[in-house]
């Protein structure tokens, strides 16, 4: 899957779960500081990414991801190793 497609789908999920306008989500956006993600929402994001891309993310590693760009990279890597 191309990075652009992953990015579009990731932003859509973030927008839906966090209630943030998609246009305001950039690659550099930080989940906590810029998007206001609470710990409960971070778990919802992990679950939604897993469902969307059919992957399994290890909890500790997934929660180390701090920005949207890193999340895209993280998912891309998982898809490549699938």
């Amino acid at each position, binding site marked *: 899957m191309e990075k652009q497609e992953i990015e579009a789908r990731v932003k859509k999920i973030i927008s839906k779960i966090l209630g943030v306008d998609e246009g305001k989500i950039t690659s550099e956006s930080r989940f906590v500081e810029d998007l206001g993600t609470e710990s*409960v929402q971070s778990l919802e994001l992990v679950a939604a990414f*897993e469902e969307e891309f059919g992957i399994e993310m290890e*909890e500790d590693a997934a929660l180390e991801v701090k920005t949207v760009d890193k999340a895209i990279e993280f998912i891309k890597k998982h898809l490549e190793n699938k």
Partner: protein
Amino acid sequence: MKVLIFEDSNWINLTPLSYIKPVFELRCGFSTLFDKIRCKVEKMEIGLWVREYLINLIKAKYNYPVNDESFFMDDLLLINSRWLVTSKDKIEIIDEGIYQSEGDFVYAVLKQGTVKKIWDGDIDRFISEIKNHVKKEEKNVRIIKYPWHFIHFNSEILQDDFEFIGKSGIKGKFHSNAIIYGDEKRVYTEKDSEVHPFVVLDTHAGPIYIDKKAKIFPNARIEGPCYIGEDTQIMPGANIREGNSFGPVCRIGGEVEESIFHSYSNKYHDGFIGHSYIGEFVNLGALTTNSDLKNDYSSVVVYVNGKPVDTGELKVGSFIGDHTKTSIGVFFNTGSSVGMMCNVTSGGILPKFFPSFIWYINGRYMKGLGIEMMLKTAKIAMERRGRTLSLEEEEVIRKVYEITEEQRKEYISKSRKIT
């Protein structure tokens, strides 16, 4: 003769309560199963036998030999740690024999020769083999098979423990505007305990024992039988109905009926908990409530290790594992089993079974924050009450995380929108 207090493979039927502690550490009445057994055999040489992953932890906690095979080289009194011993129960050490209660092993008196002949290193095989070598006798005693049995017997055991200890009277601070409603001889307050103004201790249905440093704040009403453990606090206005045991360092508010709080757990706020066993370091958010009676008055089914079991009882609440936390406004269904280190948030009708370490958010089972983050939270919670998570305890929690992983994944997977 040596005494070996053992747990058999039935510990799994007492989960989630027994995941990180041996069965004999579970509580009924004033004390644990171990304390009650020890009273009967304290002059003898005692040893303990636990499941393998608990060995290091129990060795660190007790000054008794643990899983020491040399016990099987001697005359042996073998006691099932699921035996809920009362003051009236007697251990007869006269003839070689096995004592059972409705087919369940209670204790056995064995000669060295018999022990050596049967022992092959496996406790469960040893137990089932004994009956082929010695005479059997039926005993009318209480054996704990499932978590709800602790609740079933608690009121009776509270009464029995009070009589056995035989203390009565006020040794702590008792404000002149607090009252004992009923027989005053059925109250004992330990030194350094405090009973504040406008507290009502109602002893019509049973005795009330308030242990050292416990505090009962104004306007609380406590109905006997009840045990309030060391350094436990009953919050202002609490409605403590009959049949409750609160272990040490708990904070209890709202309405509680026929329940056991193991120790170090908090239910500060309003909300009802009934016919429930709450583990250690559990935190129940404000208004957390459990149902303990079905609207059609049918018998309650509880999931034991993920499988439904009909309790045959009309009133059964929740069984909540150690270190679990609930958010504000969680409503548990009748007969819920909530694993250890779970995080349950409110929303709709909740399921009746929560695998350990799971997070339940917006009506779905989810992975938690990972074991490292959960251990970090546990350490903070324990430090707040002056306790430290030992290396052995941490090792046991990690092991339980591992052995419950498959079940957790199964439930998360079922909960997915797309699989």
